[in-house]
């Protein structure tokens, strides 16, 4: 594998994680709790898209858009039924509730669609192959959607009234409410955007690899890691965190640590030392713990809480 290829893989992974982390970070910021059901909402969108695409025969692009929007609406309903009743509870209570919700969602999906891996009905991808790398059209799509999401988010936060209200409500909910901002309305929008983006991210992962009921759980630690690394409540941090994690996961397996230990040939301790592929999931876990240890407020460290 060439370096260019590893860089491409890293960017693809970062784009997927960005879509999921953006949503987690704004919900966290607005409602002050760690939503353990966030990635499970994404999987609901993934399976809705599968239903529209495979069972009803819709092309994948409209299927993905409709499914993501529908999942966004679904999250609003869940918020009304569950989280709205707990607005004044402590973060830990809401967090445990979201955990229960996550278990219920994941297993409902497994009961309906089964535990086996599935795929969207998309034509076989012919990769673009050059001397240095190969990339599939879907991977190009993932990168483009990731970039578009980041740009849309930036516009929303800084150039719309809703974005201004969101930032005000997250900084000081009482003051925002006193100034006539309808906090509940903002919360509804936050859920919709967060889960729609997450679902889109999930569908892209499903397109690149395959679809499993457990895929939400498989990405929860990387998504939390990216979010915390960027500083909770900081969308730009989430993007940066996703980027760092994407590169760390891919380069972690690519780098020959033997060379580093030998200081590039000066010493001679070991010949080759790669991280075994079985440990790939552990990279984000270790990184998460390191980040919590060294910079619990994230790289950008904007927020005051720690």
């Amino acid at each position, binding site marked *: 594998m060439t370096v260019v290829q590893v860089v491409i893989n890293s960017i693809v992974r970062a784009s997927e994680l960005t879509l999921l982390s953006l949503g987690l970070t704004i919900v966290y910021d607005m409602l002050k*709790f760690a939503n353990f059901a966030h990635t499970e909402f994404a999987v609901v969108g993934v399976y809705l898209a599968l239903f529209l695409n495979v069972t009803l025969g819709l092309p994948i692009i409209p299927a993905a858009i409709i499914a993501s929007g529908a999942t966004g609406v679904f999250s609003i309903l869940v918020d009304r039924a569950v989280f709205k009743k707990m607005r004044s509870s402590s973060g*830990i209570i809401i*967090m*445990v509730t979201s955990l229960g919700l996550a278990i219920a969602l*994941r297993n409902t999906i497994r*009961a309906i669609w089964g535990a086996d891996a599935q795929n969207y009905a998309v034509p076989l991808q012919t990769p673009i192959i050059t001397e240095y790398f190969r990339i599939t059209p879907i991977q190009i799509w993932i990168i483009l959607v990731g970039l578009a999401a980041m740009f849309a988010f930036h516009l929303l936060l800084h150039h719309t009234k809703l974005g201004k209200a969101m930032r005000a409500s997250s900084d000081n909910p009482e003051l925002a409410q006193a100034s006539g901002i309808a906090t509940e309305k903002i919360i509804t929008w936050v859920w919709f955007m967060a889960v729609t983006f997450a679902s889109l991210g999930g569908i892209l992962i499903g397109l690149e690899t395959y679809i499993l009921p457990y895929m939400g759980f498989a990405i929860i630690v990387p998504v939390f890691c990216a979010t915390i690394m960027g500083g909770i409540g900081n969308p730009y941090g989430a993007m940066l965190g996703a980027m760092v994690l994407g590169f760390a996961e891919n380069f972690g397996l690519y780098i020959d640590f033997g060379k580093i230990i030998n200081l590039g040939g000066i010493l001679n301790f070991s010949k080759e030392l790669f991280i075994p592929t079985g440990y790939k999931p552990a990279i984000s*876990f*270790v990184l998460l*713990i390191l980040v919590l240890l060294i910079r619990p407020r994230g790289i950008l460290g904007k927020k005051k809480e720690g």
Partner: protein
Amino acid sequence: MGLVNFLVYLAIMMGIYAILSLSLNLQYGFTGLANFGHVVFFCLGAYMSTIIVLVFKMPFILGLLGGMVVAGLFGYIISIPTANLKEDYWAIATLAAAEIVRIFFLNEDWVVGGGPYQGGAFGIGGIPQPLRSLFSAHTYPFFYLVIVLVCLVATYIIINTLTQSAFGRVIKSIREGDNLPQALGKDVKRFRMKVMAVAGSFGGLAGCLWAHYHGFISPNQFLPLETFIIWAMVIVGGKANNKGAILGAVIIMIFYNSTRFLKDYIPIEAVTLASLRMVAIGILIVVAMLFMKEGLIKEKKTLY
């Protein structure tokens, strides 16, 4: 499987899970530490005891103690970097730590000597049962039940004494926020670390009992799912109440094991049934948090 055998099996499972639920209750109920990786102690206890008894041919009691010491040490060590974190960071960090340990046992088969004991993803079989030769196949489960109950009673007494002592008052004040204990000159971080060490060693104890009862362990038995089942026990039974933690374990275990017979009466696939069972547990957690925050047995409020 006869009814009596099934009931003995159920009672053993209840006992083991009650120990787990008591030790999670010490962390979450009393100290406010949301440990989403509690299964790691269960896993470490099971593996350590297996390695000590099976590979090093030591007696069962040393395996039990070894498992408890290693799990307790692990609890102490992982709380060094995390003890000052807020509860949500704590939750994700413990979840990650538990998965790292599981991935380690999944990838490294040399820890059990490889060779005849397999290890890695294949799991380890042939774990000896203590004093097996003294009993017939029929009476042995009754004996094992006695071992489990003795361990459960010991765990209950120790944790109950601990939570009613001065130590218990400090950790309850930590649960309500760091300011009060700090104003009283208590080192909050040290107390959290001690709680993790004690709770970890009891989690390890449950793991040892589990491994030697089933005679087979594999990394797939220690998925995060197990942690969430223990959480359901604590939440339903009543947090910060040790009797509640045991009651929760009994209820969830009855529910969990009795629903497996449903497939004899309703035409339903085993996988679907397993999923629906977990859906029910998830909904149970949500409903309990919404409408029954204190659980079935409420925490005793005491004036000091």
